[in-house]
């Protein structure tokens, strides 16, 4: 397939591209771009509860399609799970990644948004709550990453 991306888009292409998505969703649909809300709607479907924001399922479906499109057009391939899969036995890796997901899902619903809803959309709209959430999760993530790095002797 056509190699449009050649590994990794420069930040000055990917960044404004994502920014325009936020603007376009407001301009077209008066909706705030966010991903965890889409997974929440999918959870409602799985629980056979009413879907409260159907557009989010369409957005998330598009996200999945767009991700595979980029992969087909030359986005860098990945295998394994970085340093984690190099140093953890498979059962432990599975447990850690499941726990990672649970923390992310739990925290996102508690905070009312994730890296996209708060980090990108909310911050771009100048929402104080999104500044607080974004500063918190980036600071915590940096501290946790550095701690894990030091405790693992630089392995992870």
């Amino acid at each position, binding site marked *: 397939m056509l190699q449009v991306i050649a590994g990794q888009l420069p930040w000055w292409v*990917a*960044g*404004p*591209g*994502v*920014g325009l998505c*936020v*603007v*376009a969703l*407001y*301009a077209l*649909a*008066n*909706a705030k771009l966010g991903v*965890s809300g889409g997974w929440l709607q999918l959870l409602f479907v*799985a629980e056979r509860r009413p879907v409260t924001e159907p*557009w989010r399922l369409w*957005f998330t*479906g*598009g996200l999945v399609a*767009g*991700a*595979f499109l980029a992969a087909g057009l030359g*986005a*860098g391939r*990945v295998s394994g799970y970085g*340093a984690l*899969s190099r140093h953890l036995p498979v059962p432990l*890796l*599975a447990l850690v*990644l*499941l*726990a*990672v*997901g649970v*923390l*992310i*899902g*739990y925290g996102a619903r*508690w*905070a*009312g948004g*994730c890296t996209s809803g708060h980090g990108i959309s909310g911050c*771009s*709209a*100048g929402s*104080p709550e*999104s*500044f607080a*959430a974004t500063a918190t999760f980036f*600071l*915590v*993530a*940096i*501290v*946790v*990453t*550095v701690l*894990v*790095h030091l405790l693992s002797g630089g392995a992870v």
Partner: protein
Amino acid sequence: MRWSALVVGVAFGFFLTGSGLGNYHTIHQGLLLRDPYIYLMMAATIATAATGIALLRRRGHTLFGEPLVIPRHPVRRQAVYGGAVFGVGFGVGATCPGITVAAIATGAWWGGLVLLGILGGLWLRGRAERRVREVGQRPPRRVPTA
């Protein structure tokens, strides 16, 4: 609305995956403060979106002529508590709800397990909030622990 959401979703997934954020290495090096890519991209995203939002606010309605309100919210405690829990997962896994899709699409199938965990975490938080409501205690934002 659904077609707009679908089209914007495709573009969002494309740029997110094209940025290479689906690769553990990209975000991990960023969080170790060794590679500025994620911060430069985030800054470029917010600069672009903030400009567009400012223009849309001045215009006051969508391209289809509907009234457009882009709200700002005051800080509630749960944004910080939830953000802290989210940050632990973000730090250990170097991923987030959108980026895990980019990981899966580029061949990191382990991202599927993260996604399964995300659905589980969303469910757990919903259960915790329902429980607090049923018991009639203080509202969920004042629950001190995860």
